[in-house]
Each structure stands twice: as C-alpha cells, then as structure tokens.
C-alpha cells in the first residue's frame, strides 16, 4: 500500500550570513520515514530538533537540500501533493477584516471548491469548531484559542487526505483541548492521515497511534504502536510481608522491595486485572500509582542516552 507521506534520505541545511557564506545549520540529517494512510503520528523532540522543518518540507514551504518528500506519491510542493494536504500553522493569521465565513470562503476558493459545495461546508466547519457565535465577527478581534479553531477549520476546508498540525492546542483552554482531541480522533475514523507536533506530550500521548522522535535533526525513534499502550509501569504499594512470590506469579515484576512492587504491563487496561488478582491472592494493597513509561519520560530518557 502506498504510504501517505514518504520521506527518503531527507536532509535540510540552512545557510547563514551574507550570500550564505556563514556556518551552515543542519536542521535535518538523512531522515527516512514512511507514514501509512490513516495513522495519527506525533512528532516530538526538543526545540531545534527539526520538527517544524520536517513539517514545512512536507507542505512544500521549504525545499529539501537532499532527499525527497512524497505525499501520496506526489513530490511535496507539486499541485497534486498540495491537493492532498491541509495545514494548520502554529501561529495562524488571517485577513483581519474578514470574519470566519469569509476566511473559509477565501481558503475554500483557493483550494478549488465550487461555490455550491462551499456554503454547506462552511456552516458545517463553523459548527464543528464551535465558532457559530463568532461567525460574523472580524477575525482581528479573535483570541488565540479562537484563531486556532478557525485555523483548524481552514485546514479541513478541502477535506484533505493528510492533515498537518503544528501545535494545534496552543492557546486552547482545557475544554478546547479535549474538543480538538475528540475531533482529531473522529477524523482518524474517516481514514485521514494526521501528522501533529506538540510540546504537550501528555496530550499527544492520548491522541497518536505512533510517535516520531527527532533530536538534532535526526530520527531518534519511531514507535509503531500506541505510546500509552506500549509499556505501562504500575507501582503497587503493599503492606510489608503481605506479598509473597506466589502472589506475583503470571506478572512481570520490574522492581521489588518489601513495601512496593513495580509491574510492567502491556496496557493500562490490565491494571484492574492486576489489582483484583493481587487482592484475591491475599496482598494488602496500600496504594496504586501509574509509573508510566509515558512519552515524556521516554523522550527524556532517549535524550539522556544521546548525551
């Protein structure tokens, strides 16, 4: 099956100084990666890791120094590739005099939508991003959160096959963040491929089906399974001496002391089973805590290893 996005030996070097004679900056180094259709891929890494550069190369806003990017088989920046893409930048700006309807009409027209399709689509999107109350207000008066919602609607206007989101929950309140997450999960059901970068790693953890970690312009890790499902560590506090070896049979123990045991589970779904089994076997549980090999700790560990 053809990948939705295919990066092949992709490198990007920025030149600096007068006539590019300064020290070059290698933002991406030989990145090869395929993203399958329907995946939600989280792009993580510290500042300067190359996340935005990778996204900009995918949208065609930057040109690769070496290698190539293909979107559904078409080279990035080609009209065919751009037809597949919906892009939401980190700091969206719109024509200040336009209200959301006009903004969406403008971007819909640019995306080649016919007038008869556009009216219904605009109403649908305004409702979906919950901007109905501000549909006739000038976008210059919008808060950051409202701009983010409108930018998401703009990215979705042409029903893209690939959605690229740069920090989509920036400036959103907790309710807004949950709404965006729900919306993106709904979009995944439609078979849309989503590439999303965010510094809110806990947020990404709940959303993505796989994670791409970048550091110093290099691909550090590509996990092919859900992060929250990958390796869950559960800290169980027990009354001293209440937990013999027979009680632990069938579970993977990572660490054990008199008063605590750390288990490794394959998913958070197994936690109730673990607790129930331990209690049934006679363990006196004093506390249960998700130690979590979460995205944040994995990223930090990987970065530490690189040092």
């Amino acid at each position: 099956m053809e990948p939705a996005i295919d990066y092949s030996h992709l490198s990007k070097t920025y030149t600096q100084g007068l006539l590019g004679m300064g020290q070059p900056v290698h933002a991406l180094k030989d990145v090869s990666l395929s993203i399958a259709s329907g995946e939600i891929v989280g792009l993580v890494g510290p500042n300067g890791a190359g996340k935005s550069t990778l996204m900009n190369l995918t949208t065609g806003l930057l040109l690769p120094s070496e290698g190539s990017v293909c979107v559904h088989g078409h080279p990035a920046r080609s009209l065919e590739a751009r037809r597949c893409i919906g892009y939401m930048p980190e700091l969206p700006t719109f024509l200040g005099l336009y209200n959301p309807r006009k903004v969406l009409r403008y971007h819909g027209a640019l995306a080649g939508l016919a007038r008869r399709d556009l009216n219904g689509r605009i109403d649908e999107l305004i409702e979906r991003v919950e901007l109905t109350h501000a549909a006739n207000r000038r976008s210059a008066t919008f808060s950051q959160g409202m701009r983010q919602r409108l930018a998401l609607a703009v990215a979705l206007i042409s029903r893209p096959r690939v959605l690229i989101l740069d920090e989509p929950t920036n400036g959103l309140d907790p309710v807004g963040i949950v709404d965006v997450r729900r919306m993106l999960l709904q979009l995944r059901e439609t078979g849309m491929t989503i590439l999303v970068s965010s510094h809110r790693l806990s947020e990404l953890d709940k959303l993505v089906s796989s994670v791409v970690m970048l550091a110093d312009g290099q691909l550090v890790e590509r996990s092919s399974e859900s992060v929250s499902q990958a390796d869950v560590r559960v800290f169980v506090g027990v009354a001293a001496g209440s937990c013999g070896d027979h009680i632990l049979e069938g579970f993977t123990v990572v660490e054990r002391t008199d008063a605590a045991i750390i288990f490794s589970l394959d998913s958070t779904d197994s936690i109730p089973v673990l607790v129930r089994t331990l209690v049934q076997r006679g363990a006196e549980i004093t506390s249960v805590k998700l130690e979590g090999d979460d995205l944040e700790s994995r990223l930090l560990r990987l970065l530490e290893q690189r040092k």
Partner: protein
Amino acid sequence: MLAWELIKETFFRKSSIAILHVLGALLYGIIAVLPMRNSLEVGAFVFILSGVALPLLISQGIFGDDIVSGRARVVLTKPMSFATLYIWRLVGMCLQCLVQMAIGSAVLYLAHRLGARGSVNHLLLLNLMAMFMFLTLTTLSTSVSSVVKGGLNLLVMVFGLIFFKAVDWLMGGMETPLAEGVQAFIKYALPPLDLLWSAGNQGAGPLEVLGLVVHALALSLIYASAGIIILSRREFACEREC
C-alpha cells in the same frame, strides 16, 4: 470564484487601502475645484496620483506582508499555481486603479464642463498612459515584494526610482558608450515614466501610443515572470525555524 477571491483580497488585505482610495477621491475633488491654468496641471495630477503614487502605495507589502505575518504559509499550501496567485492579485490592483481613475476623471471632466475650470485636453490619453504606468510600476513593485520583507518594497521602489533618475541625470552630460548604455537601460528596461508622461501630455499619435503600450506590456510581462519565478523557487520559512 478563485479569481474573484484573490481580486477582492487586494482591497480587503488591510484597512489602509480603503483609506487610500478615499484620500485619492478627496484629492481629485479638491483639484476639481481649484483653478487650473492648463491641461499640463490636470494631466500631471492624474499621472502622478494614479500612475505613480497609487501603484507604489497599493502594492506595498502585497506578498511581503503575507510572508512576515505567516499568512503566506497557509495560502501557499493551497493547490494553485504561483502564477495564478500573482496574476489575480495584479488584476485586483489594476481594477482598483481603473475605478479610481474613472471616478477621478469624471469629477475633473464635470468640474471643467460645469464650472469651466481647468483643462481636460488629452485627459483620455493621459489616463491611458497613467494606466500603463500603473501596470509597469505595480508589476515591478509586486515582484520586489516577493523578495523583500513586509512593506519594504515601497522603500526599495522609491529609492530605486530616485537613484536611477539621478544616474540618468548625471549621465546626461557624458557622451561615452557606457553612459549611453546606462541611459538606454534606464529609458527602456525600467518603468518608462518619461516616455509615457510626455506622450500623454503632448498628445502622441496612434503609432507612438501603440509602441508605448507594447513597451509597457513587455516590461510588465518581464517583471511579472521574474516575480513568479522567484515565488515558485523561494522558501517560506517561519521566524522560529527548526
């Protein structure tokens, strides 16, 4: 639909454009009620306001503003060619100029007919020459805007025109092949301000007008091609890249 949205955008992209048109209309109104001795004064006014000042102001930051604000980063990910974007924005600016010149000229003509003020000799021809001056200057300024940041294309254009005018004047006294070459370059490769002005002012014949129109169109085509090539080859990085 695409064309109309891009044309409309050139007017609504910032509120100062509407203010500019209101000021232009006011200036036309003021000139209409002032006593003017001859057609030169009316013509110079139309030519300078609509042919020179309007294109420089209306095209300020036409691409540069989008690039700096980051709006270009969404617009240019839409499936349309760079030429489409460039051409319809240029058409949008030309339509604004046409409307302003039509209204302004009507005001001047009415003031002349009703109040016997000023002179409207060659007004139609001057309008035509001003329109082509507008076209060449706007195209050049738009292409410059695809390279420089924000609204700096206005400064580049103003200082560029002053610089080349000064060079032309300095070279005027020299009779070397180099000086003649530089003068020919300024006369034919840069917006033909002098040529169009004198043709409109002196009431040039049909052949001369045709030649000037072809010259202005050819220059506009070259400037526009350069701008479209630059847009399609350049990168649109954000301020905080990597």
